[in-house]
């Protein structure tokens, strides 16, 4: 059984992202619950890193807020554990490789399995280095979610063939952060991926409006939204859960609308 890919089986998935411990422990737990209750299919929880090279200013700032509230690696697991009292929503962690490396891959992945964390998205782990952690992840039945970008070209086949969980399709070149224009060949890119695998695809990087979410959900099996939600946390702080709930409802509707468009 593979819980992450099951999520995409009968409908388009919404995968929202928040940074763990931004702005504090309790708010993050409530944010996860609010996301789960209002239409998130998978919650992607960001592990703060001192040097997030794949992330733009919005997520960099969130990481700094999380550090200000004294986040440590164990805090991440405590947050998930607290959220697990209320929700069994599938959770994936977005983490730079050095965090599980220092924790010890085995201990980190065992902890993930114990807390029903279904996968890890590791932005600085390309296909060539997957042996670093994939064998241990497989042992604990945790998916290492690969990324495919508009620049992947000849690399798509090998990445897609070995993918499990879902494939994170990067919407445009560059770093995370809201944007109004995506790579124009996204539909073609997803089509190419589907030639090699049945593992579902979710598009992320820069998505911030319901209209964009609907359009991308018509192309892929799911949509990932990060910076837009992190921005809500930045503005609303401890009041973020309510604001996130209403944002999530809106996105849910637009993604379901994409589903209707396709069914027609």
């Amino acid at each position, binding site marked *: 059984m593979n819980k992450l890919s099951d999520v995409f089986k009968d409908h388009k998935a919404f995968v929202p992202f928040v940074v763990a411990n931004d702005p504090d422990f309790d708010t993050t737990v409530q944010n996860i619950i609010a996301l789960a209750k209002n239409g998130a299919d998978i919650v992607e929880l960001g592990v703060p*890193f*001192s*040097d997030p*090279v*794949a992330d733009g*200013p919005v997520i*960099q700032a969130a990481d700094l807020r999380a*550090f200000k509230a004294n986040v*440590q*690696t164990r805090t991440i697991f405590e947050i998930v554990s607290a959220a697990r009292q209320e929700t069994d929503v599938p959770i994936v962690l977005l983490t*730079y*490789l*050095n*965090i599980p*490396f*220092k*924790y010890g891959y085995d201990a980190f992945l065992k902890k993930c399995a114990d807390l029903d964390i279904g996968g890890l998205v590791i*932005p*600085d*782990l*390309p*296909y*060539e*280095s997957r*042996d*670093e952690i994939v064998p241990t992840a497989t042992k604990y039945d945790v998916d290492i979610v*690969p*990324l*495919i*970008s508009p*620049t*992947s*070209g*000849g*690399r798509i086949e*090998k*990445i897609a063939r070995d993918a499990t969980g879902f494939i994170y399709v*990067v919407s445009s*070149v*560059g*770093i995370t952060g809201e944007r109004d224009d995506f790579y124009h060949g996204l539909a073609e890119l997803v089509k190419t991926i589907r030639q090699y695998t049945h593992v579902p695809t979710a598009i992320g990087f820069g998505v911030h409006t319901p209209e964009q979410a609907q359009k991308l959900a018509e192309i892929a099996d799911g949509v990932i939204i990060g910076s837009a939600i992190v921005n809500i946390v930045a503005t609303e702080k401890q009041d973020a859960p309510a604001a996130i709930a209403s944002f999530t409802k809106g996105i849910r509707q637009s993604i379901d609308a994409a589903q209707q468009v396709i069914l027609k």
Partner: protein
Amino acid sequence: MKTLLNEEQIDTQQAGRYGNDFGGQYIPEILMSELEKVNQSFQTLKDDPTFKMELQDLLINYANRPSLLYYAKNMTADLGGAKIYLKREDLNHTGAHKINNVIGQALLAKHLGKQRLIAETGAGQHGVATATIAALLGMSCEIFMGKEDTERQKLNVYRMELLGAKVHAVTSGSKVLKDAVNAALQEWASRSDDTFYVLGSAVGPAPFPEMVKYFQSVISQESKQQLQNEENQLPDMVVACVGGGSNAIGSFANYLDDTNVKLVGVEAAGKGIDTGQTAATIERGSVGVFHGMKSLFMQNSDGQIDPVYSISAGLDYPGVGPEHAALAEAKRAEYVGITDDEAVQAFEYIAKQEGIVAAIESCHAIAYVEKVAPTMSKDQIIVCTLSGRGDKDVASIAKYKGVNVDE
């Protein structure tokens, strides 16, 4: 087909690995296709006679190579021990060893059809070298430099602008070299179609450490030949300063197989190795994965990268090249720390003894030579690399000494 892919995978993995497990490629997928192109192109061109001729021509006729191997008679007499030779990379065009690597990478970029060079810089030497080559080859150039470093090295910022480069002051993180690398990587991820990232040190994902070593090896290729001509023997010890480790790996490269030659890398101990304000990565760091490589890094127990400190902007980096990590592990090279105070003392010492104003980075190596030479016998020989000239440091050293100079 499946086996073919696996073999390819093994090849790339082994090619960029040093020692047990250092090196590798840990970088976002967005950059991997470009990195593959750079690697293929480098592996082909490094054995290509035309490319080697172009490189040779620029090294000789533009960068002023070979650089002198200078017998430091006064220092030798004053210290009363080993005979001291200085490999004068400070006499290269642009005043540092950085030009060797930059010429190589810029030629590679040209072969790849790139129009635009980007680079990180700490002290500014690598940025100046990149801006220089961009001007020469008619390419556009943007340099990323930590805001704190732009303040420590104002003169170099102006030099880069004079050469036609745009300098971005990086305000994220601790605003030093590490953050400049982050920003340059981000820029490359956003725009790799026409842009080549000229990485200045022997760090980053494969093939950068190998490439930088290849282009910097000219230092030890020359020094070995020059000493042979002068003394008809190998040195007993080779000393070079280590930040990321590009001048050191170039200084060591041609002696790696000569196991009688002792190799010493000198790291910046900052205010002291035990003060927490240090950049002595090999002595104080632990294994981690950062900036595209597995190597040694200054980091906390959670794997968050620690801010580091050194008076020298060029050594103020929380990691070290993977081959140095492997050389330290294998005990083929020894790595020692020199404090700010010791380096500043060496800055004054070499100026007064030899009439050479050396870069504060290089003065870390000189300070070690001052310590070790008296313990060696007079028939022994040290080759110490003077990686750069110190004009850029005069104002900040004056300030360190409490002297007010009007720039």
